[in-house]
């Protein structure tokens, strides 16, 4: 069976973020969610020397550089909104499954923005995964 390259990268993401989820829980046992987010950004910064692109950064188009920067802004804003939802009276058992549905935005926009299509089999896989995401987050 041929396993596409993206699968292995996605598996690494899955394992790392799975571990990160546990560490997030452990950190918020000792500090507030907001402090946890601030230190998370500091944790990101610790990796920066390893990813420093040097002059090669000037070879990329400004539009794509803007997308990359904006992706960071949106990710952090999303995390802040999650904490704000929990702080303003939202039950974790409801807020977590709702916010875990963010791939739906991607699925809805991808055909228009990236002109990508998905096969019926992939639709079945995505549906099962979305159900699993909601059940796991509840």
């Amino acid at each position, binding site marked *: 069976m041929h396993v*596409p*390259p993206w699968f292995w*990268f*996605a598996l690494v993401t*899955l*394992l*790392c*973020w*799975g*571990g990160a989820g546990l*560490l997030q*829980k452990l950190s918020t046992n*000792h*500090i507030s969610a*907001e*402090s946890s987010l*601030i*230190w*998370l*950004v*500091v*944790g990101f*910064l*610790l*990796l*920066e020397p390893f*990813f420093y*692109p040097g002059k*090669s950064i000037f070879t990329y188009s400004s539009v*794509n550089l803007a*997308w*990359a*920067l904006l*992706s*960071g*802004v*949106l*990710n952090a804003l*999303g*995390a*802040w*909104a999650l904490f704000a939802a929990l702080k303003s*009276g*939202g039950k974790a058992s409801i807020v977590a499954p*709702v*916010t*875990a549905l963010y*791939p739906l*935005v*991607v*699925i809805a*926009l*991808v055909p228009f923005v990236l002109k*990508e299509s*998905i096969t019926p089999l992939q639709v079945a*896989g*995505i549906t099962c*995964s979305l159900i699993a995401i909601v059940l*796991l987050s*509840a």
Partner: protein
Amino acid sequence: MALKDTLKARWFWYSNLCVLCWGGWALLSRLGSREISPQTMQFLFTIGTLPVGLALLMARKFKMEPSPRGITYALLNGVLAGIGGLALFAAYHTGSNTAMVTVATALYPMITVVLAVVLLRIGFDWFK
């Protein structure tokens, strides 16, 4: 009535904002990754998170809880999340189907649950 209350609740709108932001983050990550290498994407992504981190720090008047344990866990969380982000950018960079990669990586709570059961010895819920 319940629906009306939900629509009026602030948490509901914050939750929707979160979904939109994270959906936008995944989409922009894919767009940027078409050209930019995963390492550079992660480098720029981190710079993008700085304004929000700084805004939170300023809102707290630079006061943080002095808990070495909490800080260590949160820092390690950042490092692991960063490595995971790098792999995500690499997955997008391969030119794979965006929806598939996004949904597959969003399954990470599955690993968190397994780790919590094994390492923290929390009770296993068969619903999960």
